[in-house]
């Protein structure tokens, strides 16, 4: 990978990686640190990384650093979303999105990462499996379980909203 290709990666993938991390750990400064570390690692290994694999490489590095970060902190950081009263969330459609995010935040880290990678980045089961070091069938099972949990939680809010 050339220097120019690396800069292109920064332009194209920095937002996505940052969004993936900040949605997971809900801590902007830590997310920025993780993104910076991921790009630093990409820069160091740029000779071995093909440009077409750079995005997958960045997400893989960022995901593993995020897991390390969660293990070190041994806690999921508190989010502003958790403090939002449910009654206000279900008042409007715009707030339905926040309800969904609240439900997503209650998933376990693996399920949460699966949902984020699938919905935000549009990765296939196979690609997600490569990033998270899981088999394709594991991805499928975990993601389906996560969807059903979200569906259940959303349906629990829906009667209140209606």
């Amino acid at each position: 990978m050339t220097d120019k290709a690396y800069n292109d990666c920064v332009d194209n993938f920095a937002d996505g990686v940052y969004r993936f991390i900040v949605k997971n750990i809900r801590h902007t400064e830590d997310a920025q640190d993780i993104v910076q570390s991921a790009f630093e690692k990409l820069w160091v290994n740029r000779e071995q990384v093909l440009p077409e694999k750079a995005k997958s490489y960045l997400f893989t590095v960022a995901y593993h650093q995020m897991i390390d970060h969660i293990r070190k902190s041994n806690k999921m950081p508190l989010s502003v979303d958790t403090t939002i009263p449910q009654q206000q969330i279900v008042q409007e459609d715009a707030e339905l999105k926040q309800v969904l995010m609240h439900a997503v935040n209650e998933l376990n880290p693996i399920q949460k990462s699966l949902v984020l990678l699938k919905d935000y980045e549009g990765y296939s089961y196979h690609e997600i499996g490569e990033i998270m070091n899981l088999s394709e069938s594991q991805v499928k099972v975990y993601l389906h379980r996560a969807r059903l949990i979200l569906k259940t939680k959303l349906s629990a809010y829906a009667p209140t909203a209606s």
Partner: protein
Amino acid sequence: MQLNESTYETIFLLYIDKELSPKEGLEVEQFIADNPKYALEMEALKATLLSAENIPYAFKENLKHQLDATSLEDQEKDWNQTYATNLKADMDSIPSLSTSFKNALKKEVATEGIILKPFGFSQQKFSYVAIAVCLMVFLGYQQLTKSSVLDLTATNLISANTKTEQLSNKNTNSNASNVETGLINKASKTFAKTNALVPKIYQEQKLSKEAVDTKKVQRIHIIQKESIAMAEPTPDNRSLNQTVITKLPSNYNNPININAAVIATASIDSETLEVEKELTSYEVIDTEDPNRTIFIANFEIDGNKLRGLKRRVTSLFKNNKSERNK
């Protein structure tokens, strides 16, 4: 794919994750159209999808590498990659291009790495071998010029020198004939002429060559003695007889003296001619002359040295092979 009461949920999840083929997607849509009660189920699952959300990373510029003049190489690499990709795409898009033409384009790349690969030579080792060959040719040439031309010339010159000395000694011991004096003068002139050409290094070889050359001179000496003995009936009247021989008319009928003088003259003259012939047969080669071309006819090498050389070359090939395998 079978859509029914027990499998619909899994297939619906695959549908919203876009993991189904277009044909399977149409089947799902047809199933929902046929069974409206599953439409709500599908909507509930679709509601779990996160909508696109843009969260910009504020420090992109800090992550970027500052491109400078050295990045021109990277740009060149990019251009080369783009050119290669475009060329391949263009060639694939034109089916009428002949295979030979395509192969001709490929050959240019292929010829780069051929040169000495099949022999397992690296460039460094090849240069060593080339230097060794040049050295061997130079040494062979030097040896050849020493042994064949210069040695022979020097030998001839030394033998002429020796003959002259022998003849000079002979002159002091005996009052030889005028023919002998003439030979001495001729040899002295030849010696004076050729002595300047004798290299100093061959003066040391003079003693070793002397033993061989003295045989020829001894033979001349014996012939001379015999002829003088035949011309001198008694040792006491040598001077008288010499005078008689020189003063006698040419038609004087003394077969012994005349024949002896003729024999001595003829034998000494023939030797002188041989010496002159030998001297004129060779010439000193000026090795510094750039216009001279020297052909090396044969090359001798000792069997043991040849075997050692073969062993070294074989080990060189083996080393190259093992390095290649590594």
